């Protein structure tokens, strides 16, 4: 595979992990969520969710539709104010020298928006929700760089081109509008748009949801490689247990707004403890 050579030439995930361990960062969580709740109605939304996410970790949130997993993702990513609880994020708040834990909903709205444009990324299920339809593919990728303060057109275009090939889109399509792309290409473009600023944390909501199976496999493989090579932390919502198994280190299983089980991905899927998880796992057709 030569498609993401430019990604490979950066420090490998393993090297970065070793770096992080040396500097003691590996032992400090990137995100700490405590008793987070948002209920629209009893059983609608999410309730009392707590966990810690570490650098380079992929957390999968699985459960049936309506279990509250997408709502939870919105709150975790600063797009929906919770009723109770807190989300602490380790990062560089504007004006700070070192890194520290910042309260996501204690910071000003503008700071949350800055986070989402730079250190964080959100990959929506429907790619056009995360892309600008009237801006070229290259412009869609460049926008986040400009939000980070880059202004040199040549540099931005160069990075956009590189990211297009990293996500396996023909560089010749750089000036085309995303509306002329297939669903799979749009999804890959959305991923490139998010990753160009080298975010620490990416939120994904059913990223393979609307795609054909063959397109899904390609996207999954791409995601898996990027997560590994960039040492990304990811929180991914999916109802597809195969996707969860392939990408996630850990799982949280949600049912009716509550986390009913959590643990190592293969342990939760191979030795589920909660009645609902057992039902979920046993309902998947074996092949």
């Amino acid at each position: 595979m030569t498609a993401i050579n430019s990604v490979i030439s950066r420090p490998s995930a393993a090297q970065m992990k070793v770096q992080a361990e040396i500097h003691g960062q590996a032992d400090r969580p990137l995100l700490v969520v405590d008793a987070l709740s948002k209920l629209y109605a009893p059983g609608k939304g999410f309730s009392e969710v707590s966990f810690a996410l570490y650098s380079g970790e992929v957390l999968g949130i699985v459960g049936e539709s309506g279990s509250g997993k997408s709502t939870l993702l919105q709150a975790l990513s600063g797009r929906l104010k919770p009723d109770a609880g807190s989300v602490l994020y380790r990062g560089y708040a504007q004006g700070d020298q070192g890194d520290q834990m910042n309260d996501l909903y204690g910071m000003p709205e503008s700071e949350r928006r800055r986070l989402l444009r730079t250190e964080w990324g959100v990959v929506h299920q429907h790619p056009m929700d995360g892309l600008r339809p009237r801006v070229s593919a290259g412009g869609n990728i460049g926008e986040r760089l400009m939000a980070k303060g880059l202004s040199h057109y040549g540099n931005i275009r160069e990075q956009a081109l590189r990211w297009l090939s990293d996500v396996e889109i023909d560089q010749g399509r750089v000036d085309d509008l995303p509306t002329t792309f297939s669903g799979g290409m749009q999804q890959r473009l959305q991923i490139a748009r998010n990753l160009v600023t080298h975010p620490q944390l990416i939120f994904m909501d059913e990223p393979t949801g609307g795609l054909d199976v063959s397109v899904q496999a390609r996207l999954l493989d791409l995601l898996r490689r990027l997560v590994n090579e960039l040492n990304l932390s990811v929180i991914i919502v999916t109802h597809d247990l195969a996707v969860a198994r392939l990408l996630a280190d850990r799982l949280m299983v949600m049912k009716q707004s509550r986390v009913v089980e959590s643990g190592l991905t293969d342990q939760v899927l191979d030795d589920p403890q909660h009645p609902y998880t057992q039902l979920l796992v046993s309902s998947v057709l074996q092949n």
Partner: protein
Amino acid sequence: METMLRASEVSKRFVLHNQGGVELPVLKQASFSVNQGECLVLNGRSGSGKSTLLRALYGNYLVDSGRIEVKTQGYWLDIASATPRAILQLRRNTIGWVSQFLRVIPRVSALDVVMQPLLDVGGDAKHAKHKAQQLLERLNVPSHLWALAPATFSGGEQQRVNIARGFILDYPVLLLDEPTASLDSTNASAVVELIDQAKQRGAAVVGIFHDSQVREQVADRLYDLSTQDTTVQG
């Protein structure tokens, strides 16, 4: 030799909530220890819990009670109570797992599948590639297959790719779930050779082997799960 792995009074039952809450007791107070350079073979009839026990040693199955302690970088870690992060770390640098089933990832070549564990601990790509090629050669995986994704390989070829992956790192502890099942005698003896080498460099090995010939070749001790009161036989 130094003890690397010790299980103390490990018990486990499966509760099938969606089948009337049936309870299946599988492990009862299983206790044993394994030293460096030693191979302990789990023995017992089908359904006696060999596989469950082996999976518990890898953190793939939870246990109800007891401790499963592994020596990792000079410390003892109890897998039965460890966090997912600690278990993932343990799997990267201490415990290797070889089963007969390869979980195929679309579009990833056989060579990359084998190299990955070495890359994950920061290994040099060139060295990893060289070692992967050596292992695939020893296990008689034809070189024209190395650059292909194993999805289209035969069962035996996939199995041997998986074995190569399990031996690419010199894990201090190796768990083997019937690695030679359905291999011909040439390939089975290649695997036996790899196991012997692992023992010689000081690995503690726990395995399940249905093939009695292979079992006799690699086993230093048997741990019998057939009987109700599980006892170690010397």
